[in-house]
């Protein structure tokens, strides 16, 4: 392999690893929002997943148990949110903010003894034959299971929403909860499940950060990725395929800062670090300015509490 193709593969790999946590967090939030639930606590759930996954993987020595713990932590956090907003009908915006503040604090508290501990990272699995292909092989077919899983997950969610009866019910609950309720569908239960799914995905995103991307525990290591995931859902206009594209676009922007110095761009590192946040604002503006398109695609009841008595 020539020097150039080596470099290309290396850049491609960093894009994939920067995009994967965004894919997980955003696809989970997409499902929750499709059911009408806006959970602003993604950042907090990610951190809970990151610290739990890392801690359990470190103590037990099993990456599998670590990931399981991270998913469980994400679900627990989402359960708190679901109970407050769905059972007690608290404001989704305020509860989501509380979840993030709580998650940042709790993960920092629990993660205190984990700081500075090294972790070997998740093992990679080569896909037989395909991995031997030049360039494409090392780029696409030698990853850890979470990377493959993230792509599969988006595919599954896309098919689920489009072609299954349960997916149809979920969309109906998000678009018109009153009609769904009148038809006998359990609106609150569907929203609970969608919210918990979102928590599980955010937990996976956190696991990926602390167990594969870094791999180590650092306080507040998600660095706003939970919020970027929220913006990605809008960017994707609630469509899984576009979401995958958006996550990889943002993965690319995130790693620009790593490679800028290598190719001789000499600007302060902080300026490069601003890029993902600036890009988030730019894409939000581009997508949101078309009010008709947002209205057509956004779940109609998003962010609103459901009162079955009405």
């Amino acid at each position, binding site marked *: 392999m020539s020097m150039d193709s080596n470099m290309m593969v290396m850049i491609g790999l960093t894009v994939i690893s920067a995009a994967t946590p965004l894919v997980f967090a955003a696809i989970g939030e997409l499902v929750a929002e499709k059911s009408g639930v806006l959970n*602003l606590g993604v950042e*907090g759930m990610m951190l809970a997943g990151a610290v739990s996954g890392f801690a359990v993987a470190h103590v037990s020595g099993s990456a599998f148990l670590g990931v399981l713990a991270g998913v469980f932590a994400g679900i627990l956090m989402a359960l*708190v949110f679901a109970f*407050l907003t769905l059972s*007690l*009908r*608290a*404001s989704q*915006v*305020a*509860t989501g*903010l*509380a*979840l993030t*503040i*709580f*998650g*940042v*604090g*709790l*993960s*920092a*508290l629990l993660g*205190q003894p984990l700081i500075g501990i090294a972790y070997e990272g998740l093992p990679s699995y080569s896909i037989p034959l395909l991995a031997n292909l030049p360039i494409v092989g090392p780029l696409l077919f030698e990853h850890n299971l979470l990377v493959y899983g993230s792509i599969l997950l988006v595919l599954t969610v896309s098919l689920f929403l489009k072609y299954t009866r349960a997916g149809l019910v979920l969309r109906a609950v998000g678009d018109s909860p009153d009609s769904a309720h009148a038809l006998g569908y359990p609106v609150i239960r569907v929203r609970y499940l969608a919210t918990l799914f979102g928590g599980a995905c955010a937990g996976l995103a956190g696991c990926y950060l602390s167990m594969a991307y870094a791999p180590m525990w650092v*306080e507040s290591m998600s*660095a*706003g990725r939970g*919020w970027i995931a*929220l*913006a990605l859902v*809008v960017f994707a206009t609630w469509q899984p395929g576009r979401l995958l594209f958006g996550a990889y676009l943002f993965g690319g922007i995130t790693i620009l800062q790593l490679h800028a110095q290598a190719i001789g761009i000499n600007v*302060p590192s*902080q*300026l490069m*670090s*601003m890029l993902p*946040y*600036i890009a*988030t*604002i730019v894409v*939000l*503006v581009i997508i*949101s*300015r078309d*009010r008709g398109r*947002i209205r057509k695609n956004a779940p109609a009841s998003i962010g609103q509490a459901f009162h079955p*008595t009405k």
Partner: protein
Amino acid sequence: MITLQPRAEPSKLMGFAAPLIALVVTLLAGLVLFALLGVPVGKAFYAFFIEPVSSVYGLSELGVKAAPLIMIAVALSIGYRANVWNIGAEGQLILGGICGGAVALYFYEVEAWYVLPLMITAGMLGGMFWAAIPAFLRTRFNANEILVSLMLTYIAALLLSMLVHGPLRDPDGYNFPESRLFHAAATLPVILEGTRLHIGALVALLLAVGVWVLLSRTLLGFALKVNGSAPRAGLYAGFTQNRLIWFSLLFCGAAAGCAGLFEVAGPIGQLLPNISPGYGFTAIIVAFLGRLHPIGIIFAGLVMALSYLGGESAQISLNLPVAVTGVFQGMLLFFLLAADVLINYRIVWRAKGARV
């Protein structure tokens, strides 16, 4: 089985009681948390809640921490009443610190009366500029102000870091990422000799009273109040949604920017890579805990200031991470939101399977 039964009208009593219930439950949950972490509960309780306020200096520090919280929360409450969700006050605070601090460094070695007023003006304008971005993008392009204002917070933090590592760094500071120490003319007057309690505490109280008057005595206050619940009624009062978005964001930007300038010109006295322990985020909790009411916010600000002091004191005496503060703050907001359900609903015990 527990069910929620809607009240005929919201309970006024519960409006007052909910924050108190939330505080008590948070306290109990906190003690359970300490017990789980293996921290001696009595000692933790003392370190967290008693020790910080058992001296005059401690009480003055309470004022130092409460001042920015009250200033920002009072301003945030205006927007929250009108459903304008500015959650980027932290970024607006940082911009205020940067702009005001830059003025202080520009007038370094100028000992004149006008330096401080110029700094305050610059700080407020800086915060307003940062808040104008989400206001413009929301009113012109319909971009969600929650996400935009939050992204701007990350950008502001990086901007501050870039400046104190670069152009604003102390030229004689051995390359430490800090600015020069501000001169006396560029620091806030202290109102209690021997402490760090500065005039920002008085400004915070005045602001709270001023906003109280604004909300209860003016047409604008009425428009803000009805916009959250009945947007069209606000239109009749002559205020469009866009004007309310602009007003509430700019007002908050000015208040947060001023609070940020007060931090760098007061307790800190220079520009550092990190000038706030998350005041802009905690102020969100303060606003809710204070029932979006200026006078309630004064009390809520003092409570949350205690959570910062308690966290610091527990760090020193019990070696607990400062992050405990965030856990307490998050829990408090959870319990408050849960307790708020009692305002509109009654909890009823009903035998399982019984007919309604």
